[in-house]
């Protein structure tokens, strides 16, 4: 909840580019990141923001079967549904179709998939109506699924295939929001990218013996997730008054009439665009926000890569993570 005068104070501050915590409109808070603190997971990453937001992402790699429906759906004459599957993502049959079925759906048969869920720990969100939390988690899960499972999500899905047409790796990406202090979606993407960087997949060797395909999994030898560096980060912009800001605090989120989330990859391309919130945005402002987000995204990505490199060095040195201490 927020009072009228607080709203006015924040809105005018945003207009003047002096926010309540001293940041300018397009300043981010410091992002802290640590990887590999969950030993049972194939990969993990925790991202905290100054001011409370705390997100933990675990990646669990498991062997799954390529659903025969994937092909059917991708092939099915002229009808959408595979398009549906693209957005449905998570575990649903027909993981992907964007590269299409012109090749008789062979693509869909040679791919792994990523299944994402976002959950909120009750402590993080006790101020909200549980239903709002549920729909927010659903919205974010959907966006993660849609981005990561698309052809441009970064992760090389074809590399996750073990036996074409039957077996593949499934990356279960589970994001848990431990605390909420605004700017959640961007933090979830940052933690997801970090966790994928940290993920190690066991090596699978495929053998063919008299027509039967068998594969063996060696837990000792592992591989990194191919294409993690192409996973995009999101820049969420909140429209307050007639201006927009990044990385809002909870009170600023309450003052925001609309949110535009833009996923940007290191090639500087947009991978997703999604508006949230209850207000409208003029088309010209929308275009401007897209441009801004692209530039900010590039900066964020290079900063993120630096943090991950530092983490990689720490792990290489064998220094234990701080974890939850």
């Amino acid at each position, binding site marked *: 909840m927020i009072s009228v005068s607080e709203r006015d104070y924040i809105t005018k501050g945003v207009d003047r580019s002096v926010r309540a915590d001293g940041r300018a409109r397009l300043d981010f808070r410091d992002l802290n990141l640590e990887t590999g603190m969950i030993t049972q997971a194939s990969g993990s990453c925790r991202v905290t923001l100054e001011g409370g937001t705390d997100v933990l992402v675990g990646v669990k790699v498991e062997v799954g079967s390529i659903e025969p*429906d994937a092909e059917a759906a991708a092939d099915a004459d002229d009808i959408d549904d595979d398009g*549906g599957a693209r957005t*449905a993502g998570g575990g649903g049959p027909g993981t992907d179709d964007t590269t299409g079925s012109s090749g008789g759906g062979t693509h869909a048969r040679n791919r792994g998939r990523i299944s994402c869920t976002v959950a909120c720990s009750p402590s993080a969100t006790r101020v909200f109506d549980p239903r709002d939390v549920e729909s927010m988690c659903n919205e974010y899960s959907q966006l993660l699924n849609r981005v990561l499972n698309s*052809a441009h999500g970064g992760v090389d899905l074809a590399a996750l295939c073990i036996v074409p047409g039957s077996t593949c790796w499934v990356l279960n990406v589970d994001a848990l929001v431990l605390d909420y202090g605004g700017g959640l979606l961007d933090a979830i993407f940052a933690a997801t990218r970090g966790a994928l960087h940290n993920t190690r997949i066991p090596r699978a060797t495929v053998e063919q013996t008299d027509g039967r395909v068998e594969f063996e999994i060696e837990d000792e030898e592992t591989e990194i997730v191919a294409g993690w560096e192409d996973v995009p980060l999101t820049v969420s912009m909140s429209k307050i008054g007639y201006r927009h800001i990044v990385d809002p605090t909870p009170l600023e989120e309450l003052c925001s009439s609309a949110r535009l989330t833009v996923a940007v990859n290191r090639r500087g391309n*947009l991978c997703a665009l999604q508006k949230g919130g*209850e207000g409208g945005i003029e088309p010209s402002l*929308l275009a401007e926000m897209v441009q801004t987000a692209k530039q900010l995204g590039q900066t964020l990505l290079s900063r993120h890569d630096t943090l991950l490199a530092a983490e990689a060095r720490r792990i290489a040195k064998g220094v234990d993570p701080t974890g939850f201490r």
Partner: protein
Amino acid sequence: MSDRKRVTGPEKSVAPLLETGSVPAFIFNPDRRHDGRDVNHLRPVFMKSGVVRQANGSAYLEAGKLKVACAVYGPRQNQRTKISATKGSLGCDFKFSPFSGGRRRSYMKDEQEREYSLVLEQALSPAVRLDLIPKSTVDIFVQVLESDGSAACLAAAITCASLALADAGIEMLDAVAACSAGYFESTVCLDPTGEEEAHEGGSLVLSYMPSLNEVTHVIQSGETSTATTVKALELCVDACSQIHAVMQQSLIANV
């Protein structure tokens, strides 16, 4: 777990696979698409309001093969107790009929339907004068009878729901029109069909209030450059204005 509240068939069934090579290769021609349009054209759209008798407002929309029905009930007493007293709320429910797509859909709401319900709410809320109906809710039910492109379906649902809201006499700042676009490399293709959708590199759905010149919702997937996205936004804004005109006509026709 099987659904005990419906007549059930065998435990598991799958859509059959097509014979290999039975589908002709898809070729995208920006000037002449499979249904004869070029990339800057929408499918001809038909709308009619007032189709569900017992609803407070309703509408039916047809664009090519795509068919969507929507009914609006309310404003009625809010079921949720803990809701801000000063504003009303929209309850949106988006459902694909089991037979509406390539693969049979379950009656249970899947992730996509839940997401689309949320998008529907987000796209319509900026237009509805919720401040005038405190403590009440307006329930919007959208049923897709036949789908031909999921992005196009979402856009059609938003347009159709907006028409139904107008039919229900619910005060709005402006009617919301929505349209979809697909990306083929750097080409932006308006209102892609299901077949095109299966081959596109990404898509965008834009909801727009023409009179107020405000975008109420936008959602995009797939990788594009900013220039392409901006182009798509412009194209969709124009297309939404066209759809808006059809909405007005159909409302006037029903008066």
